[in-house]
């Protein structure tokens, strides 16, 4: 990889200041950014590590009953610490492998918005709030397509707030080499309706499957899951065709509902 200047600030304010430079990049756990830089697909002139910022670490309960996770909290820490939201803890505990979970962070995953990552499904499926150094962004407004989010240049995810549902489950059909989701479906049942978020399947990145949400809000059972969505716009690659992924969306939604109910 190309060389760069390295900074490891200890406060969010210092990190924001360090990221004001042109071509500076925030570094979470580095489990995606460093491989990307090795391939020279990214070449920031400055890398600002967020792992030394204690105020961005940890899992706690918000006043409104939501689970609040600091942006620099690792997947391993969420898996171990988010017992108030078991489906989310299970999602974090299924990302990558143990060594990857020891470094990768929720903020890093959401900022990258890989179309096959797990956390975007958890955040969108939970209707989470992405809190940055500047503002609060609803998950419905945050995800804007493959590797694209509402974040501005230099904006840092400091915390993510997940409302805790009555029941939830995440089903990942794993691509065994990368351990990313070939397709993943997150189902969460709230008092005001059911949310279904799909990762890995669409050219548009993570998205909600509204037809399933409507059907499941009326009848929360696996039998109520509609027929598979159309294959138009689904990802097709050597791991699976668009039709295969569309089929998996319905299968995994049923499994998630069965496991949650």
């Amino acid at each position, binding site marked *: 990889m190309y060389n760069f200047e390295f900074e490891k600030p200890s406060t969010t304010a210092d990190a924001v200041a360090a990221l004001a430079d042109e071509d500076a990049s925030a570094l979470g756990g580095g489990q995606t950014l460093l491989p990307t830089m090795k391939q020279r697909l990214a070449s920031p002139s400055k890398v600002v*590590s967020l792992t030394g910022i204690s105020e961005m670490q940890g899992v706690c309960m918000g006043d409104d009953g939501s689970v609040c996770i600091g942006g620099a909290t690792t997947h391993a820490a969420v898996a171990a610490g988010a017992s108030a939201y078991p489906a989310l803890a299970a999602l974090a505990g299924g990302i990558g492998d143990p*060594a990857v979970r020891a470094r990768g962070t929720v903020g890093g995953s959401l900022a990258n918005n890989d179309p096959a990552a797990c956390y975007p499904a958890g955040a969108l499926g939970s209707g989470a709030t992405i809190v940055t150094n500047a503002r609060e962004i609803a998950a419905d407004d945050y995800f804007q397509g493959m590797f694209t989010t509402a974040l501005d240049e230099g904006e840092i995810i400091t915390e993510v707030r997940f409302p805790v549902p009555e029941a939830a489950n995440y089903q990942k059909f794993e691509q065994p080499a990368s351990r990313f989701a070939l397709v993943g479906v997150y189902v969460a049942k709230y008092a005001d309706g059911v949310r279904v978020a799909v990762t890995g399947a669409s050219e548009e990145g993570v998205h909600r499957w509204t037809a399933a949400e409507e059907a499941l809000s009326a009848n929360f059972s696996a039998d109520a899951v509609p027929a598979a969505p159309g294959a138009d716009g689904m990802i097709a690659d050597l791991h699976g065709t668009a039709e295969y992924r569309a089929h998996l969306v319905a299968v995994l939604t049923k499994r998630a509902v069965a496991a949650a109910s």
Partner: protein
Amino acid sequence: MSQVKLTVNGKEMSGDAEGRTLLSTFLRETLGMTGTHVGCDTSQCGACVVHVDGVAVKSCTMLAMEADGAAVSTIEGQAADDGTLNTLQQAFQDHHGLQCGFCTPGMIMSAADLLKSNPKPSEAEVRHHLEGNICRCTGYHNIVKAIMAASGQDVSNIAAE
């Protein structure tokens, strides 16, 4: 270049690193500790696993500067000073948990990480924990067996020979 200081296997060590210097590169090329292997360099294979402040990480996917000030454990620190293998290493030898040995440093460090938090893992738990460690020789059976034996469990009935 900046100086990076680590406590490696209990000994204070330091050297110069660039921003882009990976922890694996720093250990191997700057400190000359080549027991940590780099297999894929894409965080898939796990040959480079070391412990940083007690946590198993892939050292090819962490910057040396991120580890500045940390305590790092590598495969070189596992055996006793006189070369006597530790329990896990001895179990790998006893149960033929390696053939070419290239992946073994990472296997041992990942297994040590597992046994620290789960002293008596089931076979399924061992296999799950090794998801990020790839061995192209053994088919894993004897690696799993060695780790279970090192945890003090009877392995006469598990995994294929």
